[in-house]
């Protein structure tokens, strides 16, 4: 538990219209905290992020961000209030250039576009020379950076990342993790869903383990890593 959470989800129940996928999920994210979410495939990790971002409606439960109950808000309102989201798949505009992708991330921004672009290009120097290329033509890692950069364009307080390193080479993984640290250093809290459980646990301040739409365990990354049962279930021994 966190003393003064920026985000707190309590008793989240819901799904995609059919049967419930989430059966009462609780989680909190503190300021400047990196919180990991791990669990087997189909556990509902992505679904939790979608629920927070207003892409699916919960049947029960609350989602508080800062001092507001944001459950049921539409995504464009949630973006405005300071949450950025990088979906797991289809997270760039393939036919638009890198720069246009970033501009779309700042669609709600009336001023300071240049400065925001500059900040993102400083974080992702690789993107500078690709700025006129369509995002669809980039490699997986670069595309992930575009998606990441797009979500940062509005200077969010909280970033939701859905498996940002899936399918990336170790070089890119390391780079992405480094950027997450940089982002946190700049004062942003991060809720990170990860496949690479070991890496994620080692990297996060705290983490949750989900299975079948329920909380299975939570604790500091190091504690969870040390836990035998969890190690057996999710970490391959």
């Amino acid at each position: 538990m966190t003393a003064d959470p920026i985000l707190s989800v309590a008793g989240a129940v819901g799904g995609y219209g059919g049967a419930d996928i989430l059966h009462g999920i609780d989680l909190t994210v503190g300021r400047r905290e990196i919180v990991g979410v791990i669990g087997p495939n189909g556990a509902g990790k992505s679904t939790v992020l979608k629920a927070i971002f207003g892409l699916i409606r919960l049947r029960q439960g609350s989602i508080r961000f800062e001092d507001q109950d944001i459950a049921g808000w539409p995504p464009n309102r949630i973006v405005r209030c300071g949450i950025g989201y990088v979906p797991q798949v289809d997270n760039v505009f393939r036919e638009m250039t890198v720069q246009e992708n970033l501009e779309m991330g700042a669609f709600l921004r009336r001023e300071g576009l240049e400065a925001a672009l500059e900040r993102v290009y400083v974080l992702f120097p690789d993107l500078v020379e690709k700025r006129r290329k369509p995002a669809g033509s980039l490699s997986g890692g670069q595309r992930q950076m575009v998606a990441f950069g797009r979500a940062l364009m509005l200077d969010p307080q909280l970033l939701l990342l859905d498996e940002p390193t899936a399918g990336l080479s170790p070089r890119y993984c390391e780079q992405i993790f480094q950027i997450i640290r940089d982002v946190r250093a700049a004062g942003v809290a991060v809720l990170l869903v990860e496949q690479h459980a070991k890496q994620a646990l080692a990297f996060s301040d705290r983490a949750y383990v989900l299975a079948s739409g329920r909380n299975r365990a939570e604790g500091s990354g190091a504690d969870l890593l040390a836990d035998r049962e969890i190690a057996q279930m999710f970490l391959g021994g």
Partner: protein
Amino acid sequence: MDLLSFLNFYLVPGIVLGSIYALGAIGITLVFGVLRFAHLAHGDMATMGAFLVLALVAGTGMNPWLALPFAMIATAGIAVGLHWLFYEHLRRRSAILTVIASLGVALMLRAIVQVVWGVDSLTYVGGIVRPESYFGIRIKDREFWTLAATVVLVVALMLFLGYTRWGKAMRAMSDNPDLAQLSGIDTRLTTILTWTIIGLLGAAAGFFLGINTELKSLMGWYMLLPMFAAAILGGVGRVEGAVLGGMIIGIAEECSVIFLPSEYKSALAFAVLLIMLALRPTGLLRGKVL
């Protein structure tokens, strides 16, 4: 047949028809791309635009070319109205229901034209227009202006889509609607904007068809097949594809009378449509496939 008569009898009319189809196909491709459904009322919306010009000409005696911008704006209003009344409430349900609704809208628009203006052929201005000859190539004034206006409209649209904030928002929505929404793009406004553009261009296409041939209540409906063929030929969602496809279909239709009875002109567009869907559904310029 020598080259010059080929140019005069087939190519020039083909390019004129092609530019009309191009403007129409842009509308089709925008709905297909940004809003993701086949808009079957597009032809009848063009008819409506053409007849609104006629109403202005008849009512005020103004030059049809001057009346065009007003009719375009009015048609844009109609397009947005149709969206509000008949399409928007279906968006949360299956997309194909919107296609069905649009067929109903096609019937309604056509019926309105038939009630108000009847079913006989009409023209904007009487009399016979003689073509001017440029180095042996004969082109009528109205053909020249049709081409010029098409170029202006297409270039303006390309600039809008390529360089303005809302134009980029339209492209973003066409590219990835979910991501557009969660990037904070106001997809409702973008949709309305898209309908506005569709109405503007649709009215222009209808007017150009009307001034180069004649006005009939079914003129737009008969354009539907070539417009769809052009949009799919060029690649769904691609404005430049729609222009290319429109030109190809227009020229091919005019040339087809060399070997095909003229009443089967529209069979050509249909054949192109089926061949493209069978062999290369993404079209020439790699568009979307729904």
